[in-house]
């Protein structure tokens, strides 16, 4: 597979969790965590996914790596539907995940070496000496000393632990890494070390990334394409530069203006969004963001249908009468 070919395609993916109540715990409603999401990711590229907490970013990531079962929709990897029989094992090898909090995603009773080689054991790859050789190789790749293999996670700092998490994800030579907030638990100076590592690995190994983060500056720095998610739906999807220079959706604009800029000489008008993200259990009808900001044309969005339209080349917006602009 060459760079630029389609690696991952997500089609109309929905993850609804039942809300149970009453004496018999019957399903009385659904929490629509992910509600009709579609995008595609090309080989060697990074797709950044941003949005507030509770908008369904992490659920989407888990649905893609099959940690939660989607209610409907498809995840196609290299042209094969990952839900179909037979695709499973190969899919597991090619798609790996790096979790948010490295302190919680590493087993504190296992040595770093056994954490990193566990995926190899599960997939029956290599003999015992080959595996430990691979562990050494991986540790070097993520910039940790070879002696780390016999130590335990608590002996490492946050940034180093995240490197261990990355080494484990790389063990099976995946093609796609799903990074769920990989740097949000780290200090800025350490955050830049991990981001540099991720960029180096992408260049050397030709990896593709699906990066979930809430820090837009981080996302912009390493992504090719950015998707903005709000209440289970992607509201805008465009190349990174495009989305920052010409945001079309009102939510993207507000999100961009909320990022604090580390330059006191820059003065700009902030758009303060009132309230919180609504509950996905009983979402408001029509455009959910228009409802939150009481947009003047919100009423029209209830009756009208919201469609994905391509405003410019590769610049997709969830079109609604109250929130999109030209």
């Amino acid at each position, binding site marked *: 597979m060459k760079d630029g070919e389609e690696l991952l395609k997500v089609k109309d993916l929905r993850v609804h969790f039942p809300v149970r109540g009453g004496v018999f715990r019957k399903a009385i409603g659904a929490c629509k965590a992910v509600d009709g999401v579609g995008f595609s990711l090309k080989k060697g590229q990074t797709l950044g996914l941003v949005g507030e907490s509770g908008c369904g970013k992490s659920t989407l990531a888990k649905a893609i790596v099959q940690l939660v079962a989607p209610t409907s929709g498809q995840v196609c990897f290299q042209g094969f539907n990952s839900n179909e029989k037979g695709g499973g094992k190969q899919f597991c090898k090619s798609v790996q995940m790096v979790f948010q909090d490295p302190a919680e995603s590493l087993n504190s009773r296992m040595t770093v070496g056994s954490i990193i080689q566990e995926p190899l054991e599960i997939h029956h790859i290599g003999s015992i000496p080959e595996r430990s050789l691979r562990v050494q190789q991986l540790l070097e790749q993520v910039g940790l000393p070879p002696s780390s293999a016999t130590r335990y996670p608590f002996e490492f700092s946050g940034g180093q632990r995240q490197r261990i998490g990355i080494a484990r994800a790389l063990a099976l030579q995946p093609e796609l890494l799903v990074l769920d907030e990989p740097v949000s638990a780290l200090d800025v100076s350490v955050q830049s070390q991990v981001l540099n590592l991720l960029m180096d690995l992408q260049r050397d190994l030709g990896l593709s990334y699906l990066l979930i983060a809430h820090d837009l500056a981080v996302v*912009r720095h390493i992504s090719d394409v950015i998707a903005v998610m709000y209440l289970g739906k992607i509201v805008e999807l465009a190349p990174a530069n495009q989305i920052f220079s010409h945001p079309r959706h009102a939510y993207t604009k507000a999100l961009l203006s909320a990022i*604090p800029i580390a330059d006191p*000489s820059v003065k700009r008008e902030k758009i303060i*969004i009132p309230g919180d993200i609504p509950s996905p259990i009983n979402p408001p009808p029509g455009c959910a963001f228009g409802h939150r900001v009481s947009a003047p044309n919100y009423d029209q969005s209830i009756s009208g249908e919201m469609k994905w339209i391509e405003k410019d080349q590769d610049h997709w917006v969830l079109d609604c009468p109250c929130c999109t602009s030209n």
Partner: protein
Amino acid sequence: MTDQAGTPLLQIEDLSVCFKTDEGEVEALDRVSLQVDHAQTVGVVGESGCGKSVTAYSVMRLLPRPMGRISSGNIFFEGKNLLDLSADEMQGIRGNEIGMIFQEPMNALNPVQKIGVQLSEVFELHQPMEDHQAWSRSVQMLKAVGIPSPDTRMHEYPHQLSGGMRQRVVIAMALACRPKLIIADEPTTALDVTVQAQILDLLQNLRKEFSSSILLITHDLGVIAETCDQVCVMYAGRIVERGPTIKIFASPRHAYTRDLLASIPQLHGTPKTKLRTIEGIVPGLSDLNTGCRFGPRSGRAHNQEVLSQRPEFVEISEGHWVEACPVCMS
């Protein structure tokens, strides 16, 4: 700006704080000096473990006992030395004169008490007041921090509110007695950017309305740039650079400040380029050297003399102070 007598609102002078640990006594703060004037927002920034929160807790005299102790220095609040006050006198200052906003609103609130009970308790403790008066003042306070339908919220528990709403409640508690100084310890770290923007906006408005001063502790340089008049950069228990925000961001003189600023991805920078990194991590408190502490980590050659002799803290232009390590200072 100072008041008529010229005394600043808060003045910390050469404050050192020690903690007892298994490895002996370690120094968490090493002669920290800073000043907050009336109606000013002062930011303290640095990586985790550099002593930001210890500074805040020292001012409130809330250091964990018996492990933590202030070993030297003075903390003057409106000319009074807080370290000379008795526990009862200090209790009168906390909440009344100095309010504190804690980092994690879920941990700062009592999960089994209603919001209303917790909030009116603040009034009852600090001001002679009847129950119903305290209750109605609490409702006003919730309204002031922008909580919709405050009457119903008073009867709810913390878990029924969102993160942003909980932080508003904590702010309401800190501001209940209209303190002259608000110490905010990472008030927005646990929140989303959009909610962070709401909370920072709220803090600035309340500061103007109540004409209070804010000592803001954060690790986010963006937050500092947007809200603070003055900034103190801390590293390993010391302030390495201090001055007006505009000056520090435009011409940072200490290597640590420069590296810290360069390691944030810029919104107008070139994507996919290497970011500046600071190798390693903040040193542990038990293995600190006496000289320039950033030296071993800075990637710039420091000789033995610089590492063993504490650099002086000098004023290089009006109000702009730097720890004058000959290698780290440009």
